[in-house]
């Protein structure tokens, strides 16, 4: 199923296939993401959601035996043709499902990416650290101990630290992979509000197991199952009584998965 790319497409994916050795994880999927929209991605375990994100920022390169074919274009440029893969990864903020505080101070956790990009001025770094921690709803809790270890924070705080780190390199695209599994509902809502704000500047891909989260936040939602794209469409259609595919309705209403 091919969706013609709209002129404002930020990301275009065309016939993307991914296999780990003999096991194919993505069976040739095509879709596009518009600039400044939130695309929800839902689907049961092993449907290829995380693999898709790894192809997008090319961390799939680190997986031995992974083979990718098809095309992913960001602003019209194929990511696999990009010479500076580190620049690509700076343009894409990635929040992994398990919180990872790097074994350094909270400040250094957030300043790590700007430093890697060559930023050294203390005042600039200070500003970035504060802005990102505020956006990740963590600033008030840690502003008095910004020099203490990121790994000593609680799970939920580390998850927000991960979000702050993903924002620290001013990405154009933000990918969130199950960002809320370690966070309480109140904080989750605060971050969701931040995401709605961020939408003006960045394009967001939101992978989630909470179908209601996709319904709340996303403009369009994509349903993946076992490496196939079942359906992609505006939320009004996907979450309606009559989505294009029967399977989508069954999954969202909890009949399976």
């Amino acid at each position, binding site marked *: 199923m091919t969706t013609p790319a709209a002129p404002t497409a930020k990301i275009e994916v065309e016939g993307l296939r991914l296999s780990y050795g003999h096991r194919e994880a993505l069976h040739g999927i095509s879709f596009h993401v518009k600039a400044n929209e939130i695309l929800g991605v839902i689907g049961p375990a092993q449907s290829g959601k995380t693999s898709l994100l790894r192809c997008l*920022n090319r*961390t799939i390169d*680190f997986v*031995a035996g992974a083979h990718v074919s098809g095309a992913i274009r960001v602003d019209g440029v194929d990511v696999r043709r990009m010479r500076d893969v*580190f*620049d*690509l*990864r*700076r343009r894409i*903020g*990635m929040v*992994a499902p*398990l919180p*990872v*505080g*790097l*074994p*350094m101070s909270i400040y250094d956790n957030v300043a*790590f*990416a700007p430093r*890697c*990009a060559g930023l050294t001025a203390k005042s600039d770094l200070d500003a970035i650290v504060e802005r990102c921690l505020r956006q990740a709803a963590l600033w008030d809790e840690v502003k008095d101990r910004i020099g203490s*270890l990121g*790994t000593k924070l609680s799970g939920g705080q580390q998850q927000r630290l*991960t979000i702050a*780190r*993903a924002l*620290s*390199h001013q990405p154009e695209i933000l990918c969130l992979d199950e960002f809320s599994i370690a966070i309480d509902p109140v904080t989750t809502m605060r971050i969701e509000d931040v995401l709605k704000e961020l939408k003006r500047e960045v394009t967001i891909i939101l992978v989630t197991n909470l179908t209601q989260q996709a319904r709340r936040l996303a403009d369009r939602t994509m349903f993946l199952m076992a490496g196939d794209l079942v359906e992609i469409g505006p939320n009004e259609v996907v979450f309606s009584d009559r989505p294009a595919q029967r399977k989508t309705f069954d999954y969202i209403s909890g009949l399976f998965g």
Partner: protein
Amino acid sequence: MHQPTQPDTAARRAGGAPFSQTDFGRHKIRREAVARAVFLAMTLLMVAPLVAIVTHLVVEAWPALSLEFLLDVPRERMTAGGIWPAFVGTIYLVVISLAVAAPIGVLAAVYLNEYAKDSWFNRVINLAVINLAGVPSIVHALFGLGAFVYAARFGFSVIAASLTLAIMTLPVIIASTREALSAVPMSFREACWNVGATRWQTIRGVVLPNSTSGILTGIILQVSRAAGETAPVMFTGAVLYKAVERGSLLPYYLDDQCMALSMHLYVLTTQVPNLAQSIPYATAVVLLGSVLIVNAGAIGLRVWLRNRKRW
């Protein structure tokens, strides 16, 4: 659906008091006690020879042990005086060999662990490193003789002996360094890569700072190996006797022959007639003592660094 009932549960359901003992429960506790006793016994058995060796050495060496013994040169065909030339010689050999082997070993290990993909070429290198670690020291000695003494024309010298020891310790340093690097969780690296860090930025920022203790410990443990080996230095640079000044700190040039503690001990026990028994024992105590002090330092360093561990 029928589930097999576990013995403990069955007994409880049969109406015993909540914590009453069943046959199975009694056996379980007895087996636990036996297992514990066996493991403890083996641990004590392991410590016993060490204590016995150290005690025996110190008791036998006692009459000869003194600061003078350490600082003086051998006199009267080695039947009197001290061991200073051999002591300094061993320090020379160990320091130079590790100064060569440690940087090469650590950098190679970083390459193998952080950069190398799983390819045919890298598998061969891995295999070579593992097998090199298992080569007997006498074979290294022969290699050192051929490569450094003759082919490289260093002659019998401190530098030839040190390089031979370096070749010998290198594969073990590579292996221990890789071990230390692998102990840093993969998720840290992935988090760095996700924000656009290069491999080197990841290594410098996260991997190395968190594996220093393991890397240093691995290197320091090689001190005892380099200090203790006899064959490699005997073939390549250590000699029976070399006249140096008492207490002199820089008695050797790199192309000089030198004395070494391990070699000296071998000479004392096999080549010197009418020797007071306490002298070889005292030599052994100095060798063992220096190695133990260095190892204790390594353990201290490890504890200190581990207390600073950050996850």
